[in-house]
């Protein structure tokens, strides 16, 4: 038993030998060893010899590369990029299928008269997608399903909704709002003639007591500009953007692939991803933790950080600081990163 334990421990140590010693890596290691040990004991109890039980337990582990890079950003064993593409493809296929189903359902339920908001049986407001270029306003009902053509800017100013922005395969922008309760205040959705799509809670906003979920689908690679502000509720921008500004008090923010990205938060955590088309990332926070992830295609960056008591860690340069400010330049310095926080931690790492 003890020798088997030693053997499994050596095996797991071997897997983690080239992995930077992060907290997450340590936890995964312990978790792996405990599961392996239990599995080994079961195999032995079922009648396998110790050697056979060891071999069987270890064989069930599978490919650990993707896993290890998720707990230790510096880890790179296999040179080819983005091994998990095939997973993404299947996920993408799933999303397409779901979107297809949704679109079929949507077209099946579309009202005939162009440009009119119609409340269907479920209290859902549906605005005709052919309402291109003009303006549409949705004020009734608690839920919204509306589509708009010709959108260039998305402006969101709401109180406490979770916000998700994703890409789909269609040329229009679709706004879905689901109210969480009877007390939820439904936002106004208006498309201005200049292409500004505005989503706002009616002012003055009292305590909504309800909240809701706002999901916006935008055309793939449309790189719209976004100006999003909210009090609480998480914001997840998973679409290409040109000029992106996000401000929140306590919501967490995830944003990827913007041309320029500016995030302000008081206590929400921030995760920002930059690719080779990103020219600047700026984050201001009081106590939220900040994680900035950089795609392999980015040729270099200038990292300008300032914090009173937060820890700073740059996984590219290996630099670690506790409080203070400074400027690091890596590569050709084409990406401008500015981070200011009072007590939040700052991390700069590989996007994988």
């Amino acid at each position, binding site marked *: 038993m003890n020798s088997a*334990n030693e053997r499994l421990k050596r095996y797991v140590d071997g897997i983690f030998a080239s992995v930077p010693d992060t907290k*997450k890596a340590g*936890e*995964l290691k*312990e*978790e*792996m*060893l*405990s*599961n*392996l*040990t*239990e*599995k080994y004991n079961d195999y032995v109890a079922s009648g396998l010899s110790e050697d056979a039980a060891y071999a069987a337990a270890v064989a*069930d*582990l*599978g*490919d*650990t590369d*993707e*896993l290890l890079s*998720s*707990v230790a950003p510096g880890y790179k064993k296999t040179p080819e990029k983005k091994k998990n593409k*095939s*997973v993404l493809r*299947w*996920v993408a*296929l*799933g999303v397409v*299928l*779901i979107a*297809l*189903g949704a679109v079929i359902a949507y077209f099946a339920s579309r009202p005939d008269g162009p440009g009119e908001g119609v409340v269907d049986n479920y209290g859902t407001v549906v605005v005709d997608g052919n309402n291109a270029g003009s303006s549409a306003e949705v004020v009734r009902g608690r839920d919204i399903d509306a589509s708009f053509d010709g959108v260039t800017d998305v402006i969101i100013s709401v109180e406490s909704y979770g916000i998700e922005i994703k890409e789909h395969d269609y040329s229009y922008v679709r706004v879905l709002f689901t109210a969480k309760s009877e007390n939820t205040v439904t936002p106004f959705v208006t498309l201005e003639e200049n292409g500004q799509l505005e989503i706002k809670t009616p002012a003055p906003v009292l305590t909504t007591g309800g909240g809701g979920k706002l999901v916006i689908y935008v055309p793939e690679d449309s790189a719209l500009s976004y100006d999003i502000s909210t009090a609480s509720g998480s914001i997840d921008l998973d679409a290409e953007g040109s000029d992106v500004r996000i401000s929140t008090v306590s919501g967490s923010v995830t944003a990827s692939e913007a041309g320029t990205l500016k995030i302000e938060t008081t206590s929400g955590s921030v995760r920002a991803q930059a690719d080779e088309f990103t020219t600047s990332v700026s984050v201001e926070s009081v106590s939220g933790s900040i994680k900035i992830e950089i795609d392999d295609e980015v040729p270099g960056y200038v990292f300008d950080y300032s914090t009173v008591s937060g820890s700073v860690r740059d996984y590219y340069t290996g630099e670690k600081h506790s409080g203070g400010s400074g400027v690091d330049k890596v590569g050709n310095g084409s990406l401008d990163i500015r981070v200011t926080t009072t007590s939040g931690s700052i991390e700069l790492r590989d996007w994988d």
Partner: protein
Amino acid sequence: MLNTSDLMRGFVDTIVLGRLKNGDSYGYEIGKNVKALTDGGFEMKEATLYTSFRRLEEAGMIRSYWGSENTGARRRYYSITASGRTLFEENREDWLRERGVIDTLLEVNEV
């Protein structure tokens, strides 16, 4: 030929949520249950399972805590969050809807 593991991969997170929906559990137990429930028809590699845990935990769908085993290494237990339950229900609904679409397109009922 259809690659079964590619096909199943998109469902791993939902399967994990489905297992946790009925009570807290840990990696080996979940793997074992999935194998038993499918009569060995579907076996998740542990690496796949751990990757799914990390992803779900990061997204706030599950939470983890350490067990207090006296002998041997500690188990890392996972429990599903409210958003995890919602996600599971959504994915389940999506699957029920899309299943019909694929069945129709692949002429499943005409065979």
